[in-house]
């Protein structure tokens, strides 16, 4: 799997958003996109997930553009900051609904429930779950179709320390299983030992793209996150 981003841009009122950005992603990378609020992290991720249409540039996955839905579908799973589940219904209903729509056997739902420690909550209504649990269900749902690339927008936003650790443990496990993972965070210290690559966005521009240890020793980190 190879993801290629070329001159991707989306600007709102000529300031916010993302200026023309290019990079490539190889199979099995665990990339953290870091930056302050409004830096363009979510905009970039949503364009990769085909959630917003770019003003300019292209995204290709294994040579197919995002507009080619038939070729792309099932290859990318997007998990937004706020869990997007049908609140009125149970965890099991939500997973089975998406399994049906993705033409995935229900046995995969059982696997997800087990792997994400959701078996005790299978009959619980989503609206009664904590945000951490909802996020687990959300990630599990995105994995139903077994996508090669997972995009997570601020997956630990609003979670307490324990839940944040739990989500990072899940990301580590999915990465070990061979998934390519790209996620955003505005707290770089938290993902120091998690990411294999860090991309830093500042004021709509990509200002750093490299290894974590190089980033944390860089002047950019000092400038952006100095206390």
């Amino acid at each position, binding site marked *: 799997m190879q993801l290629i981003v070329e001159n991707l841009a989306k600007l709102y009122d000529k300031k916010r958003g993302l200026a023309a950005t290019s990079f490539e992603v190889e199979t099995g990378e665990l990339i953290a996109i870091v930056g302050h609020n409004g830096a363009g992290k979510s905009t970039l991720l949503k364009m990769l*997930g*085909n*959630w*917003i*249409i770019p003003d300019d540039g292209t995204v290709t996955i294994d040579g197919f553009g995002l507009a080619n*839905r038939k070729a792309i*579908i*099932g290859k*990318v*799973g*997007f998990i*937004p900051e*706020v869990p*997007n*589940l*049908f609140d*009125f*219904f149970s965890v099991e209903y939500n997973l089975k*609904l*998406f399994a*049906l*729509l*993705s*033409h995935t056997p229900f046995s995969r739902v059982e696997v997800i429930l087990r792997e994400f420690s959701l078996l005790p909550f299978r009959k619980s209504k989503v609206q009664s779950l904590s945000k951490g649990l909802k996020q687990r269900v959300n990630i599990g*749902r*995105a994995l139903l*179709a077994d996508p090669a690339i997972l995009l997570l927008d601020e997956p630990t936003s609003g979670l307490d320390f324990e839940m944040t650790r739990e989500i990072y443990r899940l990301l580590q496990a999915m990465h070990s299983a061979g998934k390519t993972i790209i996620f955003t965070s505005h707290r770089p210290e938290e993902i120091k030992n998690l990411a294999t690559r860090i991309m830093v966005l500042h004021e709509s521009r990509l200002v750093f793209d490299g290894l974590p240890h190089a980033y944390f020793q860089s002047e950019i980190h000092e400038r952006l996150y100095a206390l």
Partner: protein
Amino acid sequence: MIGNIIILTINDLAIAFKNKTFLLILFIPLFVFVTLNLVDDAGSGPDKIRIGLIQQETLAPDIVQSIRAAEQLVELTWLANVDEGNRLLKERQIDGILTRNDAATGSLELLVLKRDSVQTLAILQTFSALQKVAEGARPDWITNVSSLHESDVQRETLPTWVLMLVLLIGFVILPAQVAEEKEKKLLLALLQTPINEVQWLAAKVLLGMLLILTAVVFLHVLGQFGPVHLVDYVAILLAGSFCFSAFGVFLGFLCRTQASARTLGVIFYLPHLLPSAMSDVSQQLTAVAPLLPSYQLYKPLQSILLENASLTDMAFDWVYLILLGLLMFWFSYLLMKRRWLM
């Protein structure tokens, strides 16, 4: 493709049940009550009454002369026969037909669309005044009033109720549901599956049609009345529910949140409902109503339910509703493709 649409529609129906959308339909009597209190104020009747006379029928000369002399008050149309008069009456081109009342020599019988309408009252008042001028205090010229709509108030208001249901679901319930799926990013989650834009839109329109049909059937069961031409009635109802469901989905796409969708829905709901539903009681509204898409549904509903008309007389309305629905469906598709306000 059909399988995905069915799954989505069933899911949407389950949501509609869970979020108590069905309960909303019970609020319709309140809307009826408010609407009935909005009929024209006293004294705001029509400026000129439009009367039809049968050419072959011999009426008392002084009556005809008085009608002709009162051209400021009465617009006279000569009719070839009663059938032509009935047709013009149904098309609202005349307000009433005067014929000889054989039961009372020298007097007239008035045929109107509705016995208790503003037009009927205006005709009776005008003729009473004409008679006083011509003859003084002799027996009334008009001694009997009959109407094409021979039914009780419940049935008379049935087309209004049906229109209300269609517009309420189309303009208020559906836009909110569409906006909710956008607001909560559920739509985008669904688009990560093999479901495409057309399937999702089709499921939403189907949901609207099912809700409308359920509510209308419930209404008929409660009122225990059915149309004479059932197939025609179902056909116009399907076209109307398709049109306004697609319209509602489009309105939902224009909004980012449920709250704004509801607001926009009500802005469209009332102007579509009131002029059409009240077109029979106000000449000004009768002039305005045909400009609204809702009238293209209301008019056939009224003709089928109250005048036992058939769809062949309303082919234009049926085609209009289908074409408008398709146009709205296409607009929604374009907005969805552009991920509008998502």
